[in-house]
């Protein structure tokens, strides 16, 4: 469903992403790993349209989307979370998530001012989608809480819910389990599995090896912007380049 070819991003003299090609099959989980600064977040930014690539080509569901801006990508069905959550701390969880479905609505300012039927219908629809998404990620009961009062884990779930409300096909999750303890990480892993079961496709960046190894169908390893390995968890775990550049002693842990 996602096809990346020769993707390159240059910041000044630095090639943050360097000639990366890969392919994501629908309804699978792909993990992207690599040392800090390897270009993982940049790669996500490129796919999501937040940054224009220097060279290369991105295809989504057979369409060339190399130069589509981020909001267009969202409309086409790519949702993402950020390495640091960007929720609106003062608003409630529900209010944060409602806006996610706006891109599927068509009412504009005029509808809002005259409170047109369409507007009311679409507002209801957005609310329903938001509740649906919150229910899916398991925090429906927190809907009316201000975001600043909820836990880290709940925030991560809210961020996913926001993505889900856009009705995506592909989700890009950047270090979604960062800062979570093992127990919480387990629960988030459960959620990711649930996503795939419900037909979504997931790409994620993570440094927690047990999570990567047990979730991913395929793993792509970046180093200095270049793809140094790709394969199943077993293949990657044994790859000496990966061990040297990234895993170190954790290779054993990852193997357990």
């Amino acid at each position: 469903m996602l096809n990346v070819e020769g993707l390159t991003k240059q910041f000044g003299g630095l090639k943050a992403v360097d000639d990366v090609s890969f392919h994501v099959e629908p309804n699978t989980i792909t993990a992207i790993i690599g040392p800090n600064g390897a270009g993982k977040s940049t790669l996500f930014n490129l796919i999501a349209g937040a940054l224009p690539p220097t060279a290369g080509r991105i295809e989504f569901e057979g369409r060339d989307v190399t130069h589509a801006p981020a909001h267009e990508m969202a409309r086409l069905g790519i949702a993402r979370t950020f390495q640091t959550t960007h929720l609106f701390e003062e608003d409630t969880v529900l209010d944060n998530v409602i806006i996610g479905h706006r891109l599927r609505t068509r009412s504009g300012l005029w509808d809002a001012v005259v409170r047109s039927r369409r507007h009311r219908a679409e507002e209801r629809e957005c609310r329903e989608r938001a509740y649906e998404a919150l229910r899916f990620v398991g925090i429906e009961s927190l809907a009316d809480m201000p975001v600043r009062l909820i836990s880290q884990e709940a925030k991560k779930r809210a961020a996913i819910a926001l993505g889900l409300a856009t009705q995506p096909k592909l989700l890009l999750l950047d270090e979604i389990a960062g800062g979570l303890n093992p127990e919480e990480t387990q629960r988030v892993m459960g959620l990711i599995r649930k996503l795939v079961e419900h037909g979504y496709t997931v790409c994620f960046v993570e440094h927690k090896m047990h999570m990567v190894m047990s979730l991913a169908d395929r793993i792509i390893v970046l180093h200095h912007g270049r793809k140094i390995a790709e394969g199943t968890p077993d293949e990657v775990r044994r790859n000496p380049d990966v061990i040297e550049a990234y895993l170190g002693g954790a290779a054993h842990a990852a193997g357990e």
Partner: protein
Amino acid sequence: MKPQVWRRAGVSLLLVLGLALPLVVSNGYYQQVIVLAYIWAIATYGMNIILGYTGLLSLGQAGFFGVGAYTAALLMLKLNWNFWPALLAALVVSLVLGYLVAIVSLRTRGHYFAIFTMAVGVILNLVIDRWNGLTNGEVGLVGVPGPGSIGPVSLDSDLGKYYVVYVFLVVAVWIAWSLRHSLPGRALLAIRNSEDLAEAIGTPVMRFKRLAFVLSTAFAGVAGALFAGYMGYLGPDVTSINMTFNMLLYLLIGGIGSIAGPLLGALIVSFLTQFLQIFQDYQMLIFGPVLVLLIIFFPGGLASVPRLIRRRRARDHAAAVAMAEAAAIEGSGSAKEGA
């Protein structure tokens, strides 16, 4: 349900109060202070959309106020237009000019945007002030006609003008409210929160910023046209940066981002400055510090006071929050099992 009923009753009461006000307050001086406050409030609602909702500090608002005012006044004086088509033209011109400025200014960010728009405001002010041939320079335009009459009802009387401005104020508040509680409005709030996130959930950020900017200039333009029609006289001073500062002041004192804020702020500050006149030459020695104190002690404006009280109450319920979280975790536990 209940709070909604109360709110509706409150809003209706306020509406009726606004209608009855000029009948109760017949003193022409107070009426003028109130009407001018309404007019400034309308322009400030525009500022609230761009600053309060979208998070962009635009310092050109008074310039656009002037564009609206001069468009309307010149059309009436030079081409003998009626007030109403002139007002419409003022709206259109400030929209179009706002759009053109938006295209260039919104490419800049943060401080650059603020100073860019300040420069636009200053340019508009200077052009209006110096273009003697068109605007009659700082002498200004004399004898600008009022709204005329609709059938037998004259709107040119003090009472008539009050109701004209009042209707526009109500419309402005309505637009501000419905925008705040609509999907496009939420998109603006999302932009204020984080442009990256807004973009990622499919908001064409640039388009929405332009929308907010253009709306703000349209509000300013209409307010300007009302001002010209109400005063009957128009000078370039109302387009100076100080007027933009005044609007910001109304917004901050009233409560930035809130619905009541602009009106509340405009009324309170207007009456405060009238009151301070008794201190003559020393009034600014008092007004300056009062302003600083208000900003320091009510950073969210007066409209936020009830919210602050509510929040304090909410804090006492923090225990409830903890419990709800525990419940949520259980809920997500089922997600895990579902896997």
